[in-house]
């Protein structure tokens, strides 16, 4: 069982597909639930407290707006715990719960920068693309146990062996 970070972090489709394969999605809702059950928060819907931007300093510099750091204090621990990641690119406006473009960029950057197997899929716009996305995610999840055990270099989300293949292809293309 692998703990997988998803982006958007509250996605129904991603979380469900991961659970179907027996892995654990690192969904934002669990973090939010911990927050709203905290008796020390006076005004519970305003889940950000003064401590959160301080906690967010682990992920973003002091010059970064407190809104980004506050959000990162909730999303950051999920990224830290991730053993793999699935990111949806090119999603339409309004998709995702973060409500902040800079936090989105920082979170996806941290996931890509982390040395873990990462799958990036494009948000589907038609039926064929949806089929392709589901197949890609299922294939990735099936191969995940082996990928995590392999201790390979997944910088930029590409395994080491595939990087070598890419270099060969690039070389051949140059020769042509």
């Amino acid at each position: 069982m692998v703990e997988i970070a998803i982006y958007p972090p509250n996605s129904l489709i991603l979380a469900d597909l991961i659970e179907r394969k027996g892995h654990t999605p690192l969904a934002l809702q669990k973090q939010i639930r911990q927050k709203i059950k905290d008796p020390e928060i006076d005004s519970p819907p305003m889940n950000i407290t003064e401590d959160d931007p301080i906690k967010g300093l682990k992920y973003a510099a002091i010059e970064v707006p407190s809104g980004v750091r506050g959000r990162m204090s909730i999303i950051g621990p999920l990224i830290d715990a991730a053993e793999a990641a699935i990111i949806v690119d090119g999603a339409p406006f309004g998709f995702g719960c973060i409500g902040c473009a800079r936090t989105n960029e920082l979170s996806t950057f941290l996931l890509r920068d982390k040395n873990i197997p990462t799958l990036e899929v494009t948000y589907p716009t038609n039926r064929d693309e949806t089929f392709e996305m589901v197949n890609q995610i299922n294939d990735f999840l099936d191969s995940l146990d082996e990928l995590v055990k392999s201790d390979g270099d997944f910088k930029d989300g590409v395994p080491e062996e595939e990087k070598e293949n890419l270099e060969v292809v690039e070389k051949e293309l140059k020769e042509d």
Partner: protein
Amino acid sequence: MSENLCPSPKLSKEDWDPDVVTRMIILAPGAKVSESEIVSEMHMLDLPLTIKNTCYGAMVSGKSKDVREALKAIRKLDPAHIFTKDRGFAPGDPRRCRGQRFGPREGFHQMEKEYRILGDVADALEKRKDITVPKKHPVDIDLVKDIMNES
């Protein structure tokens, strides 16, 4: 005077229990079961759960072990078309419930977006079809140069 949209709720003992989880059950378009069928199926299990019938499916709250058992049971009704996810707030929590707010709750908009492709996702899960969609590439620079030189 404006309404208070940030009420401090009176949480029950169950709400403070860290082992209690809430799951949303969402039925994809084309599901072979209805919302009321899955709710009655969960009632029949006789587990200590709070179950709420909703427009998209149902919401179930209780100890994580009981919720897992209930989800396992109802998934058997239509494995491909029943989707579930966690929810941070308990059913009927005044901080999120639409009944106390003006307009949809925050999570509604993403659910609306995901619901549009949920039917296709369910079909893809039911019967795998290997499709490769050709990637869109930018126009070749030489072609652009030729067009520019022509004019």
